[in-house]
């Protein structure tokens, strides 16, 4: 088994309901070809360095998975045929991977995520969801990566402040 990383760019004008079937289709495809999904990473909307199919922005997704060459072939064929995908790129990260090691890695990542979620109290959860509700319009407006970083920092600082308030 080999480990691959596929980055693909989806048309940013698609809504969540329109793009979700595509993501499900691709993840199902990995499972159907005896592949192992390691990570589905959603980068969100980004400005493209150059126009692709008349689009200046794109919705980036990173698929981290293990599988064989036939799986990559099938995955790329599907993306090539799909109108919603603007561009894709697959990179081979490791040529020979141990399935057990990858599985334990996935478990560790899941556990870390769960520990993070459980450590945050219900009050903080509410604050986090509030922050999420506020952030999407701001993200849609910004144009440069520098601004996005500033926004991220702002979001972080508010996250830090709110728990202390709750304690007081």
């Amino acid at each position: 088994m080999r480990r691959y990383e596929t980055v693909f760019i989806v048309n940013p004008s698609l809504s969540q309901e329109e793009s979700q079937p595509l993501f499900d289709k691709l993840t199902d495809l990995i499972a159907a070809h005896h592949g192992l999904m390691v990570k589905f990473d959603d980068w969100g909307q980004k400005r493209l360095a150059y126009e692709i199919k008349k689009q200046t922005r794109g919705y980036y997704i990173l698929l981290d998975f293990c599988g064989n060459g036939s799986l990559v072939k099938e995955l790329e064929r599907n993306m090539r045929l799909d109108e919603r995908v603007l561009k894709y790129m697959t990179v081979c990260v490791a040529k020979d991977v141990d399935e057990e090691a990858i599985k334990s890695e996935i478990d560790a990542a899941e556990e870390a995520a769960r520990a993070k979620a459980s450590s945050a109290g219900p009050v903080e959860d509410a604050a986090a969801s509030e922050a999420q509700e506020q952030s999407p319009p701001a993200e849609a407006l910004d144009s440069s990566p520098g601004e996005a970083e500033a926004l991220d920092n702002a979001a972080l600082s508010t996250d830090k402040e709110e728990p202390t308030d709750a304690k007081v």
Partner: protein
Amino acid sequence: MPRFKRRKRMFRRRKICRFCADSSFVIDYKNPRTLRLFTTERGKIIPRRISGNCAKHQRQLTTAIKRARTIALMPYSAALSHY
């Protein structure tokens, strides 16, 4: 080279490969922010003789920049802003 004969000698700082000096500074095609340091504003890759990278890291950097270009994280060629 006879140094004393050249009156106007350029000040030369010893260049060190930044990736060798700092192991936390990793080359990754998914991180265009660090890759951008090694391209000109036009988007060209800065040669090793100027950036001072070692051969190994320059090679890795080149593939990373080229990968970043294929998925539109970095430009193949950028127009200058004041044009």
